[in-house]
């Protein structure tokens, strides 16, 4: 049970942290249609995060941070708001600070392609809750990927500036891809072994890049510390700042009702 909980935490934290970055875009997008679409994607991911964190808490109550006696804060919020950066299990791609719209699109293309591949396999997971979360998520993630893919091609085929910005964005995002397909024991044992997804993801990305007429940058993967990366709680400097903002109100009111 504990390992299932850890796995749900990984997938839940990916969604939560990335949704936080996406929600920073609100009222800042290039046009209203994109503002609405980005908020929609963030909403989908918050929804996924809630289900996955709740599942993690149910599978292993020991994971849930304890609060003062009588606190009405529900488990999903204890996990979201009362853990420090080192206890988060998301990949580092999710937590990177936002760049421009090209960075948003490049990152969303990679994140949604990867997550969709995972969820498609989890549809048959032996844990019925995880399977149901995956079934619902697959539809959402397919939409996210379509949105990103369409914009990716648009930016690639748009103006000189959009093409330049997109290739810059890819240099930022691509080094974080190898972490997405690096196996951890937990993932291979109770979920989808990320290493088995590398080819599938590569094929999808190559297709989009081919339509866009763009070649992938040749960058090595971003190193961790002694091989430990986001899944092991070893994050970039950005995560603790993200959490300082995200958690500030909740932590100021451990006995609060919202």
């Amino acid at each position, binding site marked *: 049970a504990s390992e299932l909980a850890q796995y749900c935490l990984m997938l839940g934290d990916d969604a939560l942290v990335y949704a936080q970055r996406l929600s920073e875009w*609100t*009222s800042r997008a*290039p046009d209203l249609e994109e503002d*609405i679409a980005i908020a929609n994607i963030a909403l989908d991911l918050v*929804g996924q995060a809630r289900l996955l964190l709740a599942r993690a808490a149910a599978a292993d109550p020991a994971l849930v941070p304890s609060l003062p006696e009588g606190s009405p804060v529900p488990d999903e919020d204890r996990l979201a*708001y009362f853990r420090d950066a080192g206890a988060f299990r998301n990949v580092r791609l999710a937590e990177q600070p936002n760049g421009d*719209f090209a960075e948003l699109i490049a990152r969303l293309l990679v994140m949604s392609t990867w997550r969709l591949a995972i969820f498609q396999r989890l549809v048959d997971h032996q844990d019925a809750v995880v399977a149901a979360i995956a079934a619902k998520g697959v539809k959402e993630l397919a939409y996210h990927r379509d949105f990103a893919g369409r914009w990716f091609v648009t930016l690639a085929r748009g103006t000189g500036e959009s093409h330049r910005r997109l290739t810059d964005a890819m240099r930022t995002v691509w080094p974080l891809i190898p972490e997405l397909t690096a196996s951890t024991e937990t993932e291979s044992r109770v979920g989808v072994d990320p290493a088995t997804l590398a080819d599938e993801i590569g094929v999808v990305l190559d297709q989009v890049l081919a339509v866009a007429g763009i070649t992938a940058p040749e960058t090595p993967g971003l190193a961790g510390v002694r091989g430990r990366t986001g899944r092991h709680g070893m994050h970039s400097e950005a995560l603790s700042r993200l959490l300082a903002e995200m958690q500030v*109100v909740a932590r100021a*009111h451990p006995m609060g009702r919202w």
Partner: protein
Amino acid sequence: MQVDQAPLEEAFEATIAANDRIEPRDWMPEHYRQTLIRQVAQHAHSEIIGMQPEGNWITRAPSLRRKAVLLAKVQDEAGHGLYLYSATETLGVSRDELTRRLISGKQKYSSIFNYPTLTYADVGTIGWLVDGAAICNQVPLCRTSYGPYGRAMIRICKEESFHQRQGYELLMTMMRGTDEQRAMVQESVDRFWWPALMMFGPPDGDSPNTAQSMAWGIKRHTNDELRQRFVDMSMPQAEALGVTFPDPELKWNEERGSYDYGEPDWEEFWHVVKGNGPCNTQRVAHRKAAYDDGAWVREAASAAAARNEAEASQ
């Protein structure tokens, strides 16, 4: 080519008199069109600028449920802006042109959004009082004479009532929480009460356009009528919530069957309308930055569309 406008004007007046709707294809007086553009654009701008004060708290929402609710609400505001800009487009002005008028300060938006949001309780108070006041203003507009505007308002009002209930529910939940949370709610209500009252505009005596707008069916009630309705509606809600409004003159007037209330600070009102409220500069600068930062994306989208079209026609 000069056409005789008399029959067109007659038809227009007849439609208005019958409480029927003017549609984009119909003839309308230029002054009516301009007044509508100004009003609908101001409404659209208010939705878009209104994303900021609440958007300020999305990244700090204290529970995941509230984060989802707030994201969805701010997203709805973008949607309202979208319908309303579309309505103005039927009057012959593009969204892009209106956005330029907004960020250059030529067009206004609701002054309420020039007040800062300082705590999470403000998200609830904006839902309850600000959306509440907006609904009072807007429900009559569902019957407004211009078709696209009236239909947009029907949809918007439905969503606004939903937002209002959500805001009230947030405050209700917080009032059942800790002492700090209750204090936070009261402080927020104290801050927003007077600006909310000002949302109905200056007293009728100082509102020169009201008569013409009412004659055209663009407006259905005077500012003071709507303000009174809002006060009467809000008082029992405040009691149920357990908060007070910061107005010593507020009391039930048996004779009128309404609440008496104090005079808002109209000097502050005009100050904010003229652009000198606590957040006017910040709000417009934020919108301008988003618009400017997005220019290259909109250009790329046009260029790619043109390219796709050219390739398709080969």
